[in-house]
């Protein structure tokens, strides 16, 4: 009896072990290949500076955003145009100054000056509004608490969009464990694709140009608040060398979410390891 079991079970157990080992090896090799692609992209991006020597950035950029908004009068186009200066002391200190103005349905609403400081979990936000004559609008912001959270989220999202292709390190925003998924065609170029699914269920896909090794496209896919699947694509282009780093100076983002809309970020200037004043990241209470 024992011999019969041994004869029938042993090949089955061996088969299962081989399958598991094969699956593990394939999974490991896809992970290693993804790490190779990231390492090569880092080597190309960091031309004369080591990634571990990067401690922070100071970047000035213009951002335009077109979205659809419905506040009771049907959907209208909301266009904002901003000039921002973002300072980042790695890993979790941010200071951003935003000058922006907006139109809704083609009509100018107001301009705005906002300062946001993030220091770990502490957030400071101050906003001033101005009418078309430049007169300061005195207002009481009933949504100030929620707006601070939205602003923090917006600053981190912009920082991820701008800095991730430079550092290829997402840990300040989200931890991602990439695996290689294959090759694809993007604007007549062959690209290597790697993918990771975050703990929150967002799928991140990175598309690296096979020839230049630079990041061409980053896509995010997640289930939105309405339950609909949202797809967002960020195209990186116009790479230029700044302080020994290759930096994408144009980032165009398209979203299937009407409220997120489409954005374009143009980098105007960037300093690596800028000297920040001692109070740059001090959160005023």
């Amino acid at each position: 009896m024992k011999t019969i079991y041994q004869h029938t079970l042993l090949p089955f157990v061996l088969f299962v072990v081989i399958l598991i080992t094969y699956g593990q090896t394939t999974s490991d090799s896809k992970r290693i290949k993804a790490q190779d692609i990231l390492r090569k992209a880092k080597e190309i991006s960091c031309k004369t500076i080591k990634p571990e020597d990067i401690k922070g950035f100071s970047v000035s950029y213009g951002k335009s955003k077109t979205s659809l908004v419905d506040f009771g009068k049907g959907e209208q186009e909301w266009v904002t145009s901003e000039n921002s200066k973002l300072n980042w002391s790695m890993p979790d200190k941010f200071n951003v100054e935003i000058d922006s103005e907006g139109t809704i349905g083609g009509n100018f609403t107001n301009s705005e000056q906002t300062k946001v400081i993030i220091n770990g979990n502490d957030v400071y936000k101050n906003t001033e509004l101005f009418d078309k004559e430049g007169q300061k609008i005195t207002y009481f912001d009933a949504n100030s608490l929620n707006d601070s959270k939205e602003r923090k989220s917006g600053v981190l999202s912009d920082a991820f969009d701008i800095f991730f292709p430079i550092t290829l390190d997402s840990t300040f925003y989200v931890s991602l464990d990439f695996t290689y998924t294959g090759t694809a065609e993007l604007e007549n170029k062959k690209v290597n694709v790697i993918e990771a699914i975050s703990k929150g269920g967002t799928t991140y896909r990175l598309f690296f140009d096979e020839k230049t090794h630079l990041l061409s496209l980053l896509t995010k896919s997640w289930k939105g608040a309405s339950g609909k699947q949202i797809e967002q694509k960020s195209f990186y282009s116009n790479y230029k060398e700044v302080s020994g780093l290759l930096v994408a100076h144009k980032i165009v983002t398209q979203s299937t979410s009407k409220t997120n809309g489409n954005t374009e970020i143009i980098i105007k200037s960037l300093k690596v390891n800028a000297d920040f004043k001692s109070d740059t990241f001090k959160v005023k209470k």
Partner: protein
Amino acid sequence: MKKTLMSIALGLVLSAVPVTAFAVCADLITSGTTVCTLIGSANGGTICFYSCTTVKPDNPAPETPGQN
């Protein structure tokens, strides 16, 4: 029903944002992700009342870095 009415009343109070310094009240003002529409004015248009709506961007759920 009572709770709903109370919520609506509270919402109206919270969203009625007094704004001064406009000679003529603007129909719309915006701040970040907030859009405010004019709902009334007083004192010859120098005090304006707005109803505000926060248009939340549909971003991925916030995640704590270091997790996966």
